[in-house]
């Protein structure tokens, strides 16, 4: 990569994910320092910046949508990022959290907060501060347009590196054999 004229702004977040995709991002290891010559992080768990700047170049979304707040954050990313990438199984198809989709939400809440063993009291948390859970967990492309998808649970650090370096070089991202996997 040659020296950039300006650094690209990259925002990242985890919605109903487990942070494993962010960990995989960090699995680019020392290449992080090379990447930092070309990008700056905007809103991300790695910074204390709380909202996307309006001129982000790349938004990376881990996790699907399990509550109203997830939807709100996703829309903020789509609005402010030129390119939006869905990273990992949960963002792409709901992933493991979507295994709750065949059960009524109230049944699950009852189980966890009323009938599970070792509870001193039973009640379903209902404070107005708590965002409303969605009846089902949804992949993000059902709500906003997504430009690229990087599959895997999680995709490897190498796969994430490949997509980002392709984009930085102005190439259409591609994943070769070995980097493209579903697990």
């Amino acid at each position, binding site marked *: 990569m040659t020296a950039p004229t300006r650094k690209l702004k990259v925002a990242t977040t*985890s*919605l*109903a*994910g*487990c*942070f*494993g*995709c962010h*960990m*995989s991002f*960090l*699995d680019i*290891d*020392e290449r*992080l*320092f090379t990447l*930092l010559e070309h990008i700056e992080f905007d809103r991300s*768990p*790695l*910074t*204390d910046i*709380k909202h996307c700047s309006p001129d982000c170049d790349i938004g990376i979304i881990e*996790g699907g949508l*399990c*509550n109203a*707040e997830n939807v709100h*954050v996703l829309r903020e990313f789509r609005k402010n990022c030129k390119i939006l990438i869905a990273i990992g199984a949960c963002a792409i198809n709901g*992933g*493991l*959290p979507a*295994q*709750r989709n065949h*059960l009524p939400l109230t*049944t*699950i*809440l009852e*189980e*966890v*907060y009323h009938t*599970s*063993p*070792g*509870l*001193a*009291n*039973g*009640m*379903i*948390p*209902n*404070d107005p*501060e*708590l*965002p409303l*859970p969605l009846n089902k967990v949804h992949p993000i492309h059902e709500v906003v347009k997504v430009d690229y998808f990087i599959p895997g*649970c*999680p995709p*490897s*650090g190498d796969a994430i590196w490949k997509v980002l370096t392709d984009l930085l070089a102005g190439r259409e991202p591609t994943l070769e054999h070995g980097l493209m996997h579903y*697990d």
Partner: protein
Amino acid sequence: MHQVRLHIVEFRGFEKFIQGRPYWEVPVMVQRLCGICPVSHHLAASKALDVIVGAKKLTPAAEKLRRLMHYGQMLQSHALHFFHLCSPDLLFGFDSDVTKRNIVGVAAAHPEIARRGVLLRKFGQEVIRVTAGKRVHGTGAVPGGMNKSLTIAERDELLKDIYHIVAWSRDAVHLIQKVHIQDPGLYNSFGIFRSNFMSIVGHNGDLDFYHGTLRARDDNGKLIFDGVDYQQYDKYIEEEVRPWSYMKFPFFKSLGKEHGWYKVGPLARVQNCDQISTPFAEHERKEFVDYAGGTPMHAPLAYHWTRMIEMLHAAEVIKDLLHDDDLLSDDLMVEGERKMEGVGVIEAPRGTLFHHYRVDENDLITMANLIVSTTNNNQAMNEAVRHVARRYLNGREVTEGLLNHIEVAIRAFDPCLSCATHALGKMPLAVELVDPEGNIVHSLSRS
């Protein structure tokens, strides 16, 4: 001040939807609760299922391989937390420029510290990769043992770097020790509150992250219980639900809700054990205990110091294990009399982690109960937030500076809100200043 609370806003319901799944899927399913320390869930579930398949004692190879995986995780998770997430606060100050107060800022101002942080984490991730098959969400442990041993090439690759890793971990302890000791006014008192504490301890009271019995002490260090077989955990611990958080509030049954809450994690473990089995970490533990003056240290910022002592211990244990030929053995599985119920407990990077399952005669899960590390710290984090808010709230306005200080206090516990809500790892924070009549005077939030 009326009230300050840490709301946990996500809900996922793993305990319910794994019911009906075959038990052998569980170690690979439940680790998807958390990508930051997936190995903890992978191993806690495997340990519970060891009980169910009747594997009373694993083969030496299987136990050592699991330990290697777990201590690799402890190393990577502690390195991530200290270098990537906390070193910016500690090196630049809590109120410093938000655009610099991150790992990128550290890379610019202290490149060697940032480089070591990245390489320490990388080494831990590589230990996980060779034992579990991949760095995040691997498959190494199975009920009754392991499905893979180490090749000579894999072992030798790790041996090449381990001596640097031990040395850098020692330097990290000395770095945080120096930062702490230089500013006792801040580090010994920021957000401080007294509480009980709990962890598992190994043989002879050794610090042990993989296996042992439950020990709890009160705020003066006096034993509340000790030597407790964790299969009986539900006789000692109960959980309360509160309407404003999806994260439950556990407490010791014997002391009740009001007085029975406790803290877990590095600060609890390092002060709960009688000694550490590896020499460098034991030396550092003694330094810490001497500094605390023979009485338990409760300052939240002391979590950082003890976390680095644990990282050093993990590095030393990995070094010893890599010299043990059992890692190369293919004697990996045992089985025995099938049981219907099992509990697995492990010391995860953030504290004690409980997995409890019942399985029917068709091998399907019928009940699951998880108490994750951050949930054990729920009340403690709320206390820290309350103390910081009391100390730093000026007048009737909630400021960004106050939120920064609250975040620093919460971050000391290394909360994994991903695990705790069985949801995800961000820090949604809402501070509301409420007058005694319940009217909101001022509020500020971040998500």
